[in-house]
């Protein structure tokens, strides 16, 4: 019978391979799956392409993954954040590549990748440096650029509540990229504070239906990134 629950974060990332593309949910600390990221650091996979809105803060979570030099390329909209010192250093030294994507285009590219839409037109970035070199097209008298869908080998996502079929609810603005990355990941992994039996969540309120999710792990009291940073934690 269907049961997507694994014992722990370590198991959930055990098959991440060197060179994989990884989507990581979160907008700043809201929705960042710290325990899954730390398990990925422990696991050791390297030469990763990471898709996240930011580049992490302090030296925990995503920033710690970058600091450990596991990330060869970041795809994000806003790599400059308070307490973000790890990425700038590696970017300036040329050790980590950056693909800068407007936030709405990033979200739509991930949704498109998960929805079987290989490409779409958007008005965002027309006439700006980020639109340069992209295919342009005039539709109904307005100019648009062509953008391509994004998919990933693995998506690491923080939810609030999940069931063993992989149905997921999120917490407030921690929802952000999670439902989209669940769609676009070949293997989508959810960490949730509670994992319940199918039927315990009202089918009307499910945000991510289980079909998009491959693995769920229960992390009962997930770390709060800003608290770790305030406490001076550096992972590992």
């Amino acid at each position, binding site marked *: *019978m*269907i049961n997507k629950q694994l014992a722990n974060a370590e198991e959930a990332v055990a098959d991440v391979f060197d060179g994989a593309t990884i989507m990581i949910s979160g907008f700043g600390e809201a929705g960042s799956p710290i325990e899954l990221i730390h398990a990925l650091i422990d696991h050791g996979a390297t030469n990763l392409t990471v898709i996240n809105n930011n580049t992490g803060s302090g030296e925990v979570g995503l920033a710690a993954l970058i600091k450990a030099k596991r990330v060869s390329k970041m795809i994000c909209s806003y790599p400059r954040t308070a307490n973000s010192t790890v990425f700038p250093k590696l970017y300036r030294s040329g050790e980590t590549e950056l693909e800068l994507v407007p936030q709405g285009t990033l979200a739509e590219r991930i*949704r498109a*990748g*998960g*929805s*079987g*839409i290989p490409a779409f037109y958007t008005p965002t970035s027309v006439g700006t440096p980020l639109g340069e070199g992209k295919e342009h097209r005039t539709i109904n008298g307005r100019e648009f650029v062509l953008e391509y869908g994004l998919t990933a080998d693995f998506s690491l996502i923080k939810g609030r509540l999940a*069931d063993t*079929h992989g*149905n997921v609810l999120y917490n407030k603005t921690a929802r952000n990229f999670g439902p989209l990355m669940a*769609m676009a990941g070949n293997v989508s992994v959810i960490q949730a504070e509670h994992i319940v*039996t*199918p*039927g315990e969540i009202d*089918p*009307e309120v*499910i945000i991510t*239906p*289980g*079909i*998009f999710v491959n693995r769920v792990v229960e992390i009962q009291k997930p770390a709060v990134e800003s608290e770790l940073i305030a406490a001076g934690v550096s992972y590992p």
Partner: protein
Amino acid sequence: MTNSPQQVGRTRDEMAIRLAQDIPDGSYVNLGIGIPELIAKYVPEGREFIYHTENGLLGMGPSPESGLGDPELINAGKRQVTAIPGAAYFHHADSFAMIRGGHLDLCVLGALQVSSGGDLANWSTGAPDAIPAVGGAMDLVAGVKSIYVITQHCTKNGEPKLVQACTFPLTGCGIVNRIYTNLAVIEVTAEGFQLIELSPGIDFEYVAERTGAPLLPLKDNTK
């Protein structure tokens, strides 16, 4: 079309039972209208399939008891259904993101014709006065990982439905993986129609005669 004596093969229910045996445990499945719907009754012991209906439900259950249905809880054939524990409702764009994005494991459809190249025609006979109606069939065949067809081997007039090239308007090109008929189970391969299994009491020649394109015989798996 031939003079060989009538052979019966599988009933519609037996076809559904046979197909259900080939669906792995845990599969996400979309069942088309007609014979495909029968499959839900024949889930093999120990397996669990989750049914998707493109009008916005994952975890579709059987028809409700009489009088207990909700006219707003229906399947793609617009018949009242139920929702199993663990079900989820969603809107049409999310539903077809599941389909187009390759998240469903299997779609089982009926057919007017299937070509040896895996083309499917199942939405229109192209008759000049027919009202054309496609629904979600073209999205399903374009997006779902595996497309199985379940159909009578021949039309009521005895014409083959498995053909060299479809004459009816296509639903999709090169997308059918397997065909389950009353007479046989046939895989669509790069070499054309490959027989996988004959229905009990059916001869290879009988099937081949009723197939409108070359039928490759059973491979010898004893080698």
